[in-house]
């Protein structure tokens, strides 16, 4: 995953401004207003300090846009990773209600020691715990994003369903 440089600037009394350059060379600014709405601007070529308005989003609109941008990218990222390394697969495994680990911590499953597969995220409804630690809790209905060999993934599935 290439990492992008994002500059963060405090706007006292207003909120925060984020700034980055796209691959095509456009300088883009995003203002996160304190009241939750967002403003996107593009910096002018002639005067790099002046901004030209692009779009203004309410909190709900920004959430939706973030979802559109964000959701496919998470799965793509895992797909990319597993494609690059032969023998590595990823899967999403749901923890059934009444599973022995419903209400336990991730560490209690000892999934990695037992199967060799790694849990890289816990998905709870709309909420994602990326790179969870052994102390993170599990609940029935959660989904685990697991990376490992096909065999390891099968192992985790049997483990959590009890």
């Amino acid at each position, binding site marked *: 995953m290439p990492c992008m440089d994002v500059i963060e600037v*405090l*706007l*006292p009394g207003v909120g925060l*401004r984020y700034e980055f350059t796209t691959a095509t060379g456009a300088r883009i600014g995003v203002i996160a207003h*304190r009241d939750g709405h967002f*403003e996107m*601007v593009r910096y002018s070529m002639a*005067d790099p300090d*002046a901004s030209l308005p692009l779009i203004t989003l309410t909190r709900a609109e920004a959430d939706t846009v973030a979802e559109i941008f964000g959701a496919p990218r998470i799965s793509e990222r895992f797909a990319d990773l597993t494609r690059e390394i032969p023998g590595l697969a990823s899967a999403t495994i749901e923890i059934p209600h009444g599973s022995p680990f419903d209400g336990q911590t991730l560490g209690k499953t000892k999934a990695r020691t037992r199967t060799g597969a790694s849990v890289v995220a816990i998905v709870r409804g709309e909420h994602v715990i990326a790179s969870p630690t052994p102390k993170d809790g599990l609940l029935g209905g959660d989904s685990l994003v697991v990376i490992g060999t096909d065999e390891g993934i099968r192992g985790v599935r049997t483990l959590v369903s009890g």
Partner: protein
Amino acid sequence: MAEIGIFLAELGLLLLILGALSAIAERLRISPIPLFLLAGLAFGQVGLAQDGQASEFVQATAEIGVLLLLLLLGLEFSTAEFSASMRRHAPSGLVDLALNAPPGFIAGLLLGYGWRVSLALAGITWISSSGIVARLLGELGRMANRETPAVLSVLVLEDVAMAVFLPLVAVLLAGGTMTRAAIGVVVALAVVLMIFFVAGRFGPRLGQVLGPEDSEQVLLRVLGTTLVVAGLTYAVGASAAVGAFLVGLAIPGRTAMRAREVLKPLRDLFAAIFFLSFGLSVETSGVLPALPVAAALAGVTILTKVATGWYAARCDGVGRYGRFRAGTVLIPRGEFSIVIAGLAVMSGASGVGPLATGYVLLLGIAGPVLARTSDSVIGTLSSRRSAPPPA
């Protein structure tokens, strides 16, 4: 019973007039403050409101208007934002003070006011109107511009400097000695520290009990605290406005956000009446003769504010055009200047009233216009030479 009827009708008419003025200001894209002042002057001229049933109510309301203005100013930013501004822009704040306060002070001395009133005049020319400037930045689509953090930092520093300046001037104008003024400042700071302590200690528990989402609770709690603290600071000889401002500063994050939402309409109503009432208190016949001095002062302090903005934006590595934009947007003076002038007038320096009115009328109207034209000036400049400007 007839009196109540007349009172209600008068008050209603007053509000309708203020509403019409604010609509005109919106149409002309200027701040409504100058128009409210003008309305006050006009009413004063006809002697309408003094004899009217509503006049007592207007005065009491104006008092609360000042408190709400300052409370909301204090609520506008957090202590974290203040310390960030301080770290980065402390020199800009000092340049701001060093350039913009002396013109007012010198003018006061030249007019023969004595140093106390001159100090008040220094405050009037020093402080930009954060209300007008913040609105301008939004309207002109400059929030994301690179010079804007510098502009906002200057505003934050000015506003906090007022927490010290206001009690100082209030005591000095009331005829107190420097020692008493120092005590006033210390008391004000002690009050705010106490609030910080209490809020830090019991704030979360209080928040749990009352529920931060309940508008009614936020409204009553914050307003009640403000009035009590304002009354206390008044009783110990500092100005009530200072107390309100300190309460605003002391209220932490989430509560502050809710309080802003809930109190803003109330502030708009009461502050409008405050500006009107200030206009009423000014001798209308004095304004025209004071205009030349006000215009000269305005001319000088337009230049000094542009220099301030130029300097602050340069600290952030902004190019020439951005520095010019930062300078012009800082020109408007407004609510704080009127609050300080109000203190001066109350202390008996009635000549400050017409001068400050003229000054705020000129800069409250000219400031936004100049800030807007700066865009087209830069437009012509940058199209004349097609090369990008050197940073």
